[in-house]
């Protein structure tokens, strides 16, 4: 990837991380850990890869994205705002009464959301059905889906895993389907390994007949290359095992099960934003002077504390 593109995507991912923290702090509830682990994947998909038109969310030839781990929808909302589905000002209505930004995605309230998810284990089946329907109509669209590692304990995931490489064969194989595993290693109660270990993940998906690629899910170049590879694979769907860090870019959230489903308090949110932006504590005041947009967010979060 040319370095200018990489820098742009890095900047998008950083902005989105800030927005995730901002909206969750406003909401006072939600799931920061998994939103921060999945955001780099979504950044490449929405920022460089998928074909879509925010003005025409029902464009038949758009690529589809399904966030099966629906609780991490703040990451998706951040990207959707960034690419123009709705104004960024809407982000802070997350989880508030009347907002189209439901706590988990709602297909009807927010155009651009392809399926309601949040009850874990269901998104992949829907993604397969869409991929099949598109194949039957000989449409060029691709279907992307992200599942979680904790989510992979659901039985329906394995029904889908077993069926997808066979569905539509031989005339309409689902090589238009590309699934990411956001492998951050943590679920609500504890580490995935302690609750119900998934290993060996790569071997399992290979055994079911998928093309499997293993990457660092925070390396934008690796994500891009994996997507290139997936597009070149014919005759079967692709499964990308993306090794990620839960709470990535915020020191006190990283790799900590406590931050699966807890929103930061205003001061924690502000600190998280500073860390995401890579600013040392001593340089923060000066940074905010030079960056009025960040300063506005910090003021906004600071005001929440006084409420």
């Amino acid at each position, binding site marked *: 990837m040319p370095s200018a593109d990489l820098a742009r995507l890095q900047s998008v991912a950083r902005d989105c991380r800030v927005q995730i923290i901002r909206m969750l702090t406003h909401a006072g509830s939600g799931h920061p850990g998994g939103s921060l682990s999945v955001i780099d994947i979504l950044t490449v998909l929405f920022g460089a890869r998928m074909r879509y038109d925010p003005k025409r969310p029902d464009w038949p030839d758009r690529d589809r994205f399904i966030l099966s781990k629906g609780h991490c929808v703040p990451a998706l909302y951040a990207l959707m705002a960034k690419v123009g589905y709705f104004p960024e000002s809407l982000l802070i209505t997350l989880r508030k009464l009347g907002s189209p930004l439901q706590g988990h995605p*709602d297909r009807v309230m927010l155009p651009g959301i392809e*399926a309601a*998810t949040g009850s874990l284990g269901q998104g992949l089946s*829907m993604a*397969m*059905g*869409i991929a*099949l*329907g598109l194949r039957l109509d000989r449409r060029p669209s691709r279907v992307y889906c992200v599942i979680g590692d904790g989510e992979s304990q659901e039985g329906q995931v394995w029904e889908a895993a077993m069926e997808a490489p066979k569905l539509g064969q031989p005339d309409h194989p689902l090589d238009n389907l590309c699934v990411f595993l956001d492998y951050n290693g943590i679920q609500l109660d504890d580490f995935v390994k302690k609750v119900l270990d998934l290993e060996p993940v790569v071997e399992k998906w290979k055994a079911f007949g998928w093309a499997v690629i293993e990457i660092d899910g925070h390396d934008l170049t690796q994500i891009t290359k994996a997507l290139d590879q997936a597009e070149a694979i014919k005759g079967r769907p692709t499964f990308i095992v993306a090794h990620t860090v839960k709470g990535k870019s915020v020191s006190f959230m990283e790799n900590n099960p406590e931050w699966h489903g807890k929103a930061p308090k205003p001061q924690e949110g502000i600190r998280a934003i500073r860390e995401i932006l890579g600013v040392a504590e001593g340089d923060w005041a000066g940074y905010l002077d030079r960056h009025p947009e960040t300063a506005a967010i910090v003021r906004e979060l600071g005001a929440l504390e006084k409420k």
Partner: protein
Amino acid sequence: MPAKASRAAFGEALLELGAQDPRIVTVDADLSKSTMTAAFAKAYPGRAFNVGIAESNMIGIGAGLALAGKIPFVCSFACFVAGRFETIRMSVAYTRANVKIVGTHAGIAIGEDGYSQMGLEDIACLRALPNVPIIQPADETETKQAIAYAVEHQGPLYLRLTRQNLEPVSPPDYRFQFGKAVVLRPGSDVTILASGGPVFNCLKAAEKLEGEGVKAEVINVACIKPLDEELLVRSASRTGRVMTVEDHSIWGGLGGAVSELLAEVHPTPVKRLGVQGFGESGDPKGLYAKHGLDPEGIARSVMKFLSC
């Protein structure tokens, strides 16, 4: 017209409709010979998908196909589709996916296979979902028209079909109308609201009751959700007594729906006839007699209801 199972009528209707509308596809979970989609699969091999014994995945794939513009019929036994309630709730209902859910083998009338294969709580489960209408046709004519309607209906829908043959009950000029019930036999002493398999037995029971001086009005309620409020209330207010008859649990099915409606808009004494507790293996006739769903049992229940 000979008696025919509504699942068989469904299979025939689908075969015909499939030729007219290329958007129609089927998704089965290894029961296509029983749900009667096998003929469709043979006629349109690229449009029928058997995903193995994996009903949740079947429903999810159906939802995805609908989101891609297809009109999928996802088919299994009523008890197995309703068993995947949560998948229907999220992937179909809340997603507002245009999926036609077909549950065959409704009720104790399947007989020998016993309780595990009997759809007895499916209406109760799916009726709770905000946007899932429930249609249970009573004979071949009504089934074929209901299937044609299902294709036109925008949004999810649940069709409850029988394994057993159904005697014709619809009048010759019958036209299925969504949300409408039909008076099959007018009467003034009691209203019998029936749906699906037992409708024919209710007509037989009404004949018996006539001999005992009781004029029973028999209404076929094919559309369990939404109910035909106007017709039901009109009949209830004329007869003053309403009995519901269904091959389903008395908790939450047609009887539940009618009781909820009447309690709110026109309080009327209601007697719910249906299945209480678990079903069991046995010959279908014997099971209907045991649960009072045969003509004699229905007539007996009406007489008892009118005497109290």
